[in-house]
């Protein structure tokens, strides 16, 4: 009996370990929860409509944060994820216009595969050329934005009504049915999280990002890991473009949209606890940070802050959060 008790003891939940390893992710989720609760008290009636609005409008950034997180965890950084989102948005809007629902789904899958392959090519170029990720993707940012502009020179295109409902919960893109957007958020994020934590390939991405040399010496194909991370990143960026198409109902390919989205994805990833040096952090944390970054704007506008001041406050908030994190990290290092 004692052995059984001991075994139970040994398997018991080690809260300290969890706090140390998952503290940041939990913190970001609490921050997000606090922000939403604050938002709920701020406006007179907080209901299904607001939940739907937050869920669907944060979708593109959440997908992009997941894409960036996977690439960063594997030791890279992709400055072109935003451009990839715009490309997927443009291609899908061009092809889906006037098509029935079943066809739009086929096109959506095609676009996701296309973007994954394209970004796998980017990852391949990085491994072959040995040029740093940030430089290669800076160049592909221009190339991919140019391609998007070729596909869709002026805003337009369209999609099917039910494709919009898939991401927004309503065939018109605005409604109070929050289940579709929530599920469309939760399922891809959960798949990415499980892939990263529970599969051999996912763990090889962590290993490669953590220490490429050690990973290589442990018989991990680091070049393959890099290509895989970029391919998955491309797929999630494509998903972001599709969700943006579902939200607005038409496509647009502006260079500034792509670069802004990229910058926000990097902010989300860092805020979500993923270290830009690679190998550390979780997809779930990055996703929470993505929702948080979106949620700030309705909160600030509900507080009566004008959009320009809101932008200043957002910037200051991000810096303050990172400063606090930096100080916490510093104190922890000193304590150890």
């Amino acid at each position, binding site marked *: 009996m004692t052995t059984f008790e001991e075994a139970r003891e040994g398997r018991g939940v080690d809260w300290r370990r969890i706090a140390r390893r998952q503290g940041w992710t939990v913190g970001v989720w609490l921050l997000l929860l606090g922000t939403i609760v604050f938002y709920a008290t701020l406006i007179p009636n907080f209901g299904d409509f607001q939940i739907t609005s937050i869920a669907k409008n944060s979708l593109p950034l959440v997908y992009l944060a997941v894409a960036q997180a996977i690439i960063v965890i594997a030791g890279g950084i992709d400055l072109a994820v935003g451009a990839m989102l715009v490309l997927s948005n443009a291609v899908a809007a061009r092809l889906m216009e006037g098509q029935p629902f079943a066809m739009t789904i086929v096109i959506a899958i095609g676009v996701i595969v296309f973007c994954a392959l394209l970004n796998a090519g980017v990852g391949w*170029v990085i491994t072959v*050329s*040995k*040029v*740093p990720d*940030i*430089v*290669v993707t*800076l*160049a*592909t*940012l*221009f*190339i*991919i*934005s*140019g*391609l998007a*502009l*070729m596909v869709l*020179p002026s805003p337009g295109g369209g999609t099917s009504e039910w494709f919009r409902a898939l991401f927004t919960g309503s065939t018109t893109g605005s409604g109070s049915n929050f289940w579709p957007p929530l599920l469309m958020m939760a399922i891809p994020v959960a798949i990415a999280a499980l892939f990263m934590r529970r599969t051999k390939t996912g763990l090889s991405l962590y290993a490669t990002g953590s220490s490429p040399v050690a990973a290589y010496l442990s018989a991990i194909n680091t070049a393959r890991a890099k290509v895989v991370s970029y391919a998955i990143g491309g797929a999630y960026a494509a998903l972001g473009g599709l969700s943006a198409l579902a939200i607005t109902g038409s496509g647009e390919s502006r*260079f*500034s949209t792509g*670069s802004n989205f990229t*910058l926000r994805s*990097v*902010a989300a990833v*860092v*805020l979500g606890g993923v270290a*830009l040096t690679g190998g550390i952090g979780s997809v779930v944390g990055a996703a929470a940070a993505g929702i948080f970054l979106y949620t700030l704007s309705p909160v600030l506008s509900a507080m009566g802050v*004008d*959009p*320009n*001041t*809101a*932008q*200043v*406050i*957002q*910037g*200051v908030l*991000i*810096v303050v959060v*990172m*400063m606090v994190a*930096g*100080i916490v*990290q*510093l104190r922890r290092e000193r304590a150890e």
Partner: protein
Amino acid sequence: MTSDLGTRLSAGAEDRPNWSSWLADHPLAVLSVVLVALVLVTAVIEPRYLSVGGLRNTVLLAAPLGIMAGAQTILMLTGGIDLSVGMIATAAAYVAANQSPNGAAIAIVTGLLVGLVAGSVNGIGVGVFKVNALIMTLAMSAILLGLFTALSFTVLQGSTTVAPFIKTLGGGSFWGNRIPYNALVWAGVSLVIIFGLKRTGFGRLLYAVGDNPIAVRLAGVRIWQVHIAAYAIAGLLAALAGILLAGRTGAVDLQLAVSFLLPSVAAAVIGGTSIFGGMGTYGGTILGALILGVLATMMTFLDAGQAIQQVVYGSIVLALAWLYARVTRAS
């Protein structure tokens, strides 16, 4: 067939190690060749380009970019990066336009002051609070954009043109319309940066911080001070570039220098500055800025539409970075 070619190529490299190692030791020679080649290609596309006026226009385009890329080079040497140079330049141009009625001198000084303050705040964030440089400067960019959009409706309303002296400095030329004044400013800035990086203790410290921060800290250097100084200088250079740009375009708006951000990074990268710190020269960055300037001129001559321009621009940046990596790894 391909592997056959590959072995022959590598055998060729072994046959003439002098040639390939000379190139590896003198990457700037490769860049110069690329620059000349691009100028010649542009001349083929548009024969009138190969004249004093045509080349002058390229330098006029490249000077603000080169100065902004100087800010980027200094920070990349320390292992940092500044994604707020575009907004700092725009902000400085706005303030300079606002102060222009008080005289060009006051306008320039207040404009530069904006850059100094914004850069110092970046430096404090990165150096003291250890905020990641990408995030710190990104947030600074967002803060400045919000701030100056709001201010452009109130205090800065109507501040859209700069003093005549700044216009001459940014867009005018001397010696029979041959040499732009902004090239003169760029030359002065270049001399200071090149001398500063090579010959001063602070310059060597920038390389050291990027190369091995732990060794530098153990040697007794207060790294946070180096960071603040480097970011402040970068802010100053960005502000200078913004003022010159406002002089060249003649009008100030919120989009003034935003499109210069990514080319400023690209110029430093093409010039061989390592994004991880500790390696690079400003001479390379100057060539990088000139190459991008020629490329921009070529695009306008081709009149190819924005989409194709972006694809070609990105492809050439990628090809140059790849070429540079290959050449320098030959040793």
